[in-house]
């Protein structure tokens, strides 16, 4: 059950804009998620603050360039560095995305969608096992937002995630905003997606904002969370029980206090959802 996984509470993404404030004010944030690649360096300010913050808060490592579904061989040097960073800061878990971000020859630095086919499934599952062997821990994979899908799809995205978790033992980072964005873009029901994921595999949730262009939605991570995503989040927690929740903001950084206020909102809505869950149990 989801409850048997550690519940870290409500966290924020660690961004250099906020390092000093975090150390000076010890804000009421339960944990921080760090972008792994930002700390795969040999020295300097980022590592200095990372070490200091790791002494005070639980951390989770979130990568963006594993390219688990890519057409290339896995980058063993990168994996080794991820492992070393994990040894250094002892994160509660290590995550990346169910996507590919590197092509045949070049790094593409985007979270590109995979066709949900049997071929992709076996390709990704084998690579997840390879990564887990190096990291010696389960890999946590996040669903991404997408803007096209392949005609060759043999599964829905949630069926694919189920099968992948089953085949590889990976766990899931459910980004509620990404589900919402993709549901609008592809015309599926967001709750059907979430309801059909394996609850016992869901280790973490993401909340974020997006840009709504009317006909489509773009996952920009530079806005506050919107109401339909808050609703979906509450429904998700009511269904799953407590799951560590992270509020993501990757651009247009507001004053730290604004993020804390938004995090309090997650906390309150989360508490209400969990209370409803216990009443109905």
């Amino acid at each position, binding site marked *: 059950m989801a409850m048997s996984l550690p519940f870290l509470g409500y966290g924020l993404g660690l961004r250099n804009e906020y390092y000093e404030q975090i150390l000076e004010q010890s804000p009421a944030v339960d944990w921080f998620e760090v972008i792994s*690649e930002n700390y*795969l*360096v*040999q*020295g*300097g*300010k*980022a*590592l*200095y603050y990372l070490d200091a913050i790791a002494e005070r808060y639980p951390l989770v490592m979130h990568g963006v*360039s594993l390219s688990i579904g*890519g*057409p290339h061989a896995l*980058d063993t040097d*990168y994996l080794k560095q991820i492992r070393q960073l994990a040894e250094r800061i002892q994160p509660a878990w290590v995550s990346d995305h169910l996507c*590919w971000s*590197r*092509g*045949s*020859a*070049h*790094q*593409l*630095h*985007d979270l*590109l969608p*995979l*066709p949900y*086919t049997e*071929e*992709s499934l076996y*390709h990704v599952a084998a690579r997840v096992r390879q990564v887990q062997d190096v990291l010696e821990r389960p890999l946590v994979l996040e669903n991404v937002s997408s*803007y*096209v*899908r*392949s*005609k*060759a*799809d043999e599964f829905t995205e949630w069926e694919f995630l189920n099968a992948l978790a089953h085949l590889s033992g990976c766990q899931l980072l459910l980004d509620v905003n990404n589900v919402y964005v993709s549901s*609008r*873009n*592809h*015309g599926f029901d967001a709750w059907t997606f979430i309801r059909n994921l394996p609850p016992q595999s869901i280790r973490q949730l993401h909340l974020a904002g997006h840009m709504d262009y*009317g*006909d*489509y939605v*773009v996952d920009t991570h530079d806005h506050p969370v919107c109401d339909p995503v808050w609703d979906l989040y509450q429904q998700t927690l009511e269904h799953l029980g407590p799951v560590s929740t992270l509020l993501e903001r990757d651009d247009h950084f507001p004053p730290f206090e604004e993020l804390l206020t938004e995090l309090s909102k997650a906390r309150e809505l989360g508490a209400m959802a969990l209370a409803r869950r216990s009443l109905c149990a």
Partner: protein
Amino acid sequence: MRLTDWQLAFEQHLLSETPVANSGFAATLLGGPTLDVDTGLAIYHNAYISRLQDVLRHDFSAILYWLGDDEFAALTEAYVRRYPSAHYSLRWLGERFPTFILEHLVAEQGVPLAELARLEWAFTLAFDAPQGEPLTLHDMASLAPEDWPGLQVTLAPSVQQVFCRFNTVAIWRASKDESDFPHSQALDPVQICLVWRHQNVCHYRSLEPAEICALAGMVTTGWRFSELCAELAVTYAEGAPLQAVTWLKQWVQDGLLERRAP
């Protein structure tokens, strides 16, 4: 279509100059109720190029200040088309930008601009270089008198040396201050600008030829402190030891030096 072929076609789409994909690849895709395939592909295409340009805008803000938004956008787009990213970390995206500027622009514009790009890149290198063990004034104070003549040093790992044939540092400074740009001018004599990190803050300083020679003698040629004094005696006569100590103290205070194992 096999997975790898499909990914190759997707990659081709991102790398191509136009946001419109070739029809063969587009035909393998589905849109949604109100999002057609071409718009979806254009979203990926725009996101690819603008993410890379954002990184370069951040790492080369003085070049951006010099060129303005439009020219900078054109130059950086040409750069990432010519040299797509080869490292998993965007931190290394700009590594070949100074070289590209020389290749891409006419020499008159390219040479000073490439020098400015090299200076900005030096800051990124200093920023996250290994810490090393820079000598401190405290270390120097506890050095026994008999160890002074044989003292040998190297540069701390974060120290970058940028060879300046133009008034690049003044141009860089103007961009940071958002003040009026000085005209690009050749320098005579040339300068070395050092860029380094000390206590987690990046610093820079231009060196005059005499100080460059003294520093290079110590860190590159491997002079002992006594040899530095001897070399300086040619110019400074009996003032040589004082000049040597003055420079050495400055270098140590700045965090530029590590002790070379005897």
